[in-house]
């Protein structure tokens, strides 16, 4: 809890809970702080003929955690899937508008969605480890992207990914066990380790704690707090308390529209829009 208090005090935290200073060139740190990771302009998503998102304009910060909240069915997941083009895998889904990642339109013809997804990882609502060993789960991404040529390199990637996901100590003696033998919370962290293993720049999370018990949820939130130092994180959550705890920016969606987007503190303390206020105070949703 104390750690949380420190972390909540600022967007940018140069020291991890372990006291390790994050190495980052000043120039890069500056660039990161200034340029948004994603710029969305008039983003619309259609399922068949129905428009699920009605022209979203939104910038996602390069650092910290951005939370997407709103009543269910308002298009949070749909919007999240825009960033790694997972909507492409849904047969009748169509995306229009501009989505720039580091200034580059990710819906451009020359962008291969398969490569994009290595840069933009995703964690799903239900933990979905592959029916393989813990090791093979984490090694899956590095293997298909050819990130390690030697066995030792792969071992190292697996170890560091599991460490970053806060799972290494729990599983280091049972890497050969099936990933599905872990508890729900461990599975979710395994899936995060799997995503980290391909060194993405962004991690998208779609209600990652909705299938977890309170203790596993607390652990996951702690982990998100650590990960935000190295990754740009966008998280969908139906729990407003969670959004308040883990995020620095919050976007409120309603019926396919982005109603309000601001610092988390502002959204929860002085929402400008009546709909946001109603949702936050529990009158809708």
């Amino acid at each position, binding site marked *: 809890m104390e750690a949380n208090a420190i972390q909540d005090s600022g967007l940018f935290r140069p020291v991890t809970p372990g006291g390790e200073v994050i190495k980052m060139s000043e120039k890069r740190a500056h660039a990161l702080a200034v340029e948004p990771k994603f710029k969305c302009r008039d983003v619309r998503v259609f399922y068949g003929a129905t428009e699920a998102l009605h022209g979203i304009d939104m910038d996602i910060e390069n650092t910290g955690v951005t939370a997407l909240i709103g009543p269910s069915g308002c298009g949070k997941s749909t919007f999240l899937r825009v960033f790694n083009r997972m909507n492409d895998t849904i047969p009748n889904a169509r995306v229009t508008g501009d989505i720039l990642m580091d200034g580059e339109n990710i819906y451009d013809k020359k962008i291969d969605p398969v490569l994009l997804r290595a840069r933009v990882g995703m964690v799903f609502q239900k933990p979905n480890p*592959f029916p393989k060993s813990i090791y093979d789960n984490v090694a899956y991404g590095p293997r298909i992207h050819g990130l390690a040529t030697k066995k030792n390199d792969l071992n190292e990637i697996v170890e560091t990914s599991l460490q970053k996901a806060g799972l290494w100590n729990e599983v280091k003696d049972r890497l050969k066990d099936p990933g599905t033998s872990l508890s729900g919370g461990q599975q979710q962290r395994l899936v995060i380790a799997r995503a980290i293993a391909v060194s993405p720049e962004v991690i998208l999370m779609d209600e990652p704690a909705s299938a977890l018990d309170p203790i596993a949820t607390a652990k996951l939130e702690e982990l998100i707090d650590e990960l935000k130092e190295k990754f740009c994180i966008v998280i969908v959550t139906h729990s407003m308390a969670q959004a308040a705890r883990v995020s620095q920016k919050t976007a409120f969606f309603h019926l396919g529209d982005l109603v309000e987007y601001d610092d988390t503190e502002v959204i929860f303390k002085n929402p400008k829009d009546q709909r946001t206020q109603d949702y936050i105070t529990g009158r809708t949703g």
Partner: protein
Amino acid sequence: MTLISAALLAAVIMAAFIFGRGLAFSRGGAFSASGVSGRAHSLPAYHGYFAAWAVGVATILAAFIGWMLRDTIGFEVVAILVIVTAGAGFVVCHQLINPDFRARNFVETFVKMALFLCSGVAVLTTFGIVLSLVFESLRFFEQVPLLDFLTGLQWSPQTALREDQAGQSGAFGAVPIFTGTFMIMGVAMFVAAPIGLLIAVYLSEYASKCTRALVKPIIEILAGVPTVVYGFFALLTVGPAIRGFAESFGFSVPTQSAIAAGSVMGVMIIPFISSLSDDVINAVPQTLRDGSYALGATRSETMTKVIFPAALPGIIGALLLAISRAIGETMIVVMAAGRAANLTGNPFEAVTTVTVQIVSLLTGDQEFDSAKTLAAFALGLVLFVITLALNVVALLIVRKYRERYE
């Protein structure tokens, strides 16, 4: 005659239903017109069903008993017996039906018993078949030692009409038959397994909804083609084609061969494999696909590295079911594989299978206690045990695999 009796019986049962229901309506105000009432236990229709059941069962029983005894007691007595029983049924119903009578519970019990009897018939038939197989096989093994049967290398049942020759000559050695069976099965699986699996992969992962809706039923038509049609296709088209092909290389190959029968059988079991595997692959949760795509895996990587391994147990189950189908198949091999019990490893030669041998042992005029005909039961028993084992293993695998995702 039977038609008239059946019509009469139906009329009596109908009458009983109307009688019981009418009685229920007329007995006091307890039954309201809508059938709902505070006091009556059962709806009038249940009284009707009860009467129909009671009168129907009693009448059928009486008719059955009378029919058995018709030679001793005469047809007139039978008729009277049936009529009296039916009448008695009506009287009993007349006594029983009142608002407190629990007709619904009786009807439920009747229904339960009827369902139980039906499943009992199926189970008993199965047991009967197995027992007759076992006992006839035991008689066979009195004449031919089990070990000779299972390990003997020569099969020539025609020469073994006298019991004293049978065991010694080794004429009932079933090894050539089983090698023939497994060779044809092997050829069939060699054809069907890759094609069936690739079809399943295509249908479940690549085909659009539209294509799938069109292609899947068409492939399943293959399973509906009568096997005798496959048989003459194998005999008249595939066999000669293979022979012609081999002759163009200077080999001489008979028209009837393991490869002709096996390849056509393979085509026959393609839909089994593709359909079952398609279901199995579809049962792999979408979240696993999403997880793989989200890591930047392509479709084929996702297919080969995630979905296929996840579905593998179920696919193995599908393959085992297909194998047991291939082993039990008769018509194609009768027509296209030949009948010679060659012990050979060459698929271009004529071979014979368990099912073909059973057919040829039992067709024609036979005494049913010679070693020759009894051998059919022994072969049938072995075949039954093999396919049963395959099916059990397949079902166990499939079930275990299902539990993993539920």
